[in-house]
């Protein structure tokens, strides 16, 4: 029983994509699909520019929209709060892909839906996920929200602000972003989610 979560400090992230490359090799993601990618946003105007590098992947939501829509129970939430796909049960109907507000899922050509698992196989061994382990800037931290001594809480306490992607979706993401460089947080100016 745990509530695994990941924090990404955008004040530190330089978007070098080491996490993305590590993920491809660790999880053998097929060419043409990524479980993890980097979004670069440019805001403001010369010379007052804000640039945000934002790694994105499955957020392992508290109430994941991708789980109830699954007709076979392949897409499920583990007791540790990880949102997983049980390959043997998946019929590749893509209902969960449609349901995900974050485009975190894709159809693996091998015939099942694939996505970030927070490297569950590593976490079981007590290791960090591959993306956390390799990040040169150390902008990622992974841990158990229920564990009071987890460094998560320390980071959350220190952070100037904590944002989640598309809060209006009510998904309760367990991947949170710290210290977004923009005052708008993770949103684009004039993007529909502002209202």
């Amino acid at each position, binding site marked *: 029983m745990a509530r695994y979560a990941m924090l990404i400090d955008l004040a530190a992230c330089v*978007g070098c*994509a080491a996490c*993305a490359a590590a993920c491809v090799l660790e999880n053998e993601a097929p060419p*043409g*699909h*990524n479980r*993890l*990618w*980097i*979004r*670069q*946003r*440019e805001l403001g105007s010369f010379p007052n520019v804000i640039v945000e590098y934002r790694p*994105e992947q499955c957020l392992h939501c508290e109430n994941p*929209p991708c789980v*109830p*829509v*699954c*007709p*076979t*129970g*392949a897409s499920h939430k583990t007791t540790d709060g990880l949102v997983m796909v049980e390959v*043997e*049960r*998946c*019929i*590749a*109907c*893509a*209902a969960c*892909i*449609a*349901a*995900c*507000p*974050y*485009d*975190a*899922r*894709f*159809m*693996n*050509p*091998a*015939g*099942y839906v694939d*996505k970030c698992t927070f490297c569950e196989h590593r976490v079981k061994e007590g290791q960090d996920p591959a993306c956390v382990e390799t990040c040169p800037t150390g902008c990622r931290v992974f841990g158990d929200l229920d564990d009071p001594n987890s460094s998560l809480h320390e980071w959350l306490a220190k952070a100037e602000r904590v944002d989640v992607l*598309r809060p*209006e*979706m009510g998904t309760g993401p367990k991947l949170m972003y710290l210290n977004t460089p923009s005052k708008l947080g993770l*949103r*684009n100016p004039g*993007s*529909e*989610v502002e*209202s």
Partner: protein
Amino acid sequence: MTAFYGIPGAEAFWHWTTLVHFLLVALAGGTAFYTAIVGLREPGNLRGLAWLSLVFIILDLFMLWAESPARLRFSHIWLFLSFAPLSAIWWGAWGLSLSALMLILLGTKLGPPRFWSGMLALSSTIVLAYPGYALAANAARPLWDHLVLALFPASGLLLALAVLVWLRPANEAAPWLQIAALASLALTALYPLALASGGADTRAALALWFQDWGWFLLGGVLLFLAAFLARRSPALAGACALAGGFVIRSWIVEHGQHSLFVHGF
């Protein structure tokens, strides 16, 4: 300005095969429902109808199987071994299989036809309803407004009737066709308004709708023609209804997949 290292899972996840499925499932559900109604009234002359709708169901199931990347993994068995009442597709699986069973019983004249027809009415309603639910359930896709909950059953029935006006005595199906056409037309007309009142996602939804509304308009016109011609020349009306219904449904399914998270957000 937004750029990416790597690719979000943003590419379309449903393809033309899925559009065909949305057509076939409508024909299957619609004809089955029609069969049920007829069966409840005069259970005599059902055979033809029963077999016809069974054929549509089989075609649809084959389509689904053939297009599934999981084709040979036999995981589909879990549809029936698991209980997922929140999943449209789970309902769809049961709806289709039960309808198929009822139709076989009706077709082979086993047991009480009225009772089977009653059951069939229920199961085929599920088949008509679940595609709309499968779309509307996705809060993340602005084009899949709750209105499709009504639009898809209506247009589904319409599509089935469009086929039936050719096969059945016109005076029997035509009036129904007109009603279904009018209903679909009304809902189609409401659709953009529904998007406009879509709350948070309004801007994105309308943006996506305006990206290419030509097809949508064409569908609307065809539906209007169908309603207009239904009594004058049912056959022609059927053709219009078939085309119109297919265009509207396909447009919503195909276009609605586009991720605003990548492009808009």
